[in-house]
């Protein structure tokens, strides 16, 4: 009954909250403060997202040893906020550091889907980029980008830990450009390769 009779305002808390929300929204839009705040918040959370890239603790083959070396005293990845978490739920970057065999293909896709959305993928080493020395093998996929969208490629077999840290640097630059756009939305832009510039 309340629906038809327009001027009978059924007072409940949800309606009140929405009404107050709309009023403040209009006011802020009018005085451009909303845009100001969104720029500030956008820059702040983008900075936060860039500065703490939690990587999944996934070691496939030799590049995993170089990934571990990148976290140790000589090439300290922690200087740039790169920590290795063991659960996909808490990591932003899936660092694929070895050949993807047929047996592991569906599992790495599952890992990729278990990661919360603003997520990025780095293909480290020849095996992850194009199958590497095993491109003729009957059991190895030709590169991880046949199954997962990849943001940064780090060539090398294995790439030196400095190249991995440079890869994280390029990823930071990509994050500042695309912000927290969902991983599916990044088709078609030029692949970023470490050591290219």
């Amino acid at each position, binding site marked *: 009954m309340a629906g038809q009779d327009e001027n009978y305002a059924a007072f409940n808390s949800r309606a009140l909250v929405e009404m107050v929300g709309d009023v403040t929204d209009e006011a802020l839009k009018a005085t451009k403060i909303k845009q100001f705040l969104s720029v500030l918040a956008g820059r702040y959370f983008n900075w936060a997202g860039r500065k703490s890239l939690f990587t999944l603790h996934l070691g496939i083959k030799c590049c995993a040893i170089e990934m571990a070396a990148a976290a140790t005293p000589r090439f300290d990845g922690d200087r740039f906020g790169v920590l290795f978490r063991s659960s996909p739920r808490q990591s932003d970057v899936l660092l694929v550091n070895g050949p993807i*065999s*047929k*047996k592991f293909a569906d599992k790495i896709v599952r890992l990729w889907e278990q990661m919360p959305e603003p997520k990025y993928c780095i293909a480290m080493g020849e095996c992850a980029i194009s199958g590497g020395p095993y*491109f*003729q*093998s*009957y*059991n190895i*996929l*030709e*590169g991880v*980008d*046949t199954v997962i969208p990849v943001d940064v490629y780090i060539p090398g077999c294995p790439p030196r830990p400095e190249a991995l840290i440079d890869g994280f640097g390029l990823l930071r630059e990509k994050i500042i450009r695309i912000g927290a756009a969902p991983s599916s939305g990044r088709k078609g832009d030029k692949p970023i390769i470490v050591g290219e510039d």
Partner: protein
Amino acid sequence: MGMRITNAQADAAAEHAVESVNARFGGSDVVATVEHHANALKMAFVRIVAPPQHWTAVAKHLKFDLGTNYCSMVTGTHHPEGGAERGWEVVYHLMRQPVANQAPHTNTVHVAEELQGMDVPLEVEVVLTLPQGQTPSVPSVQSLWVGADWNEKETWDLVGIQFEGHENMHRVLNPHDSPEGFHPLQKQHKIRYHDFNEMYDDAQGFGRKPTDEGRVK
């Protein structure tokens, strides 16, 4: 100074093993010979060429009489053009190691030069040749050496040689859902992009990325 098994010790152990095998299997076509490696140190080892039906007897003899307590490697090879009687070949590498359980707080420290008789490490290579055929099969030695268990699983998985009497045979290296008769190390399977002109069209059906059109891989 470091120590090593001298060539004399190795030759003596190999001759003893060859005599005992030939004595036992003299009549049947099991042939045991002493061979020498071709690299710098020319160490001796025993090569036994046997038909598959005698293999269980030879294995028991090696394990109980000669004390080979270590099955290190099982290799299967496919010889499609090897003639009628040499279609498949299974090579077992077995070792004798002077290893025994130790009482608490004690250990045995062998001095290589003073080892004699059954304590001298021995290397045995058993070659079983199988005739041409779709289902090469060799009796399994899983019960004699636990080490042979996963080796035989891998050999069946990759080369396709059946092992009779092997329980719980399953694929270990290839994905479990790979097709039934697919044993990659058989010679009819080519590796991808085997020769130069094959590099462009992909015979094995792996999706080629559109960006690879016309590019030399």
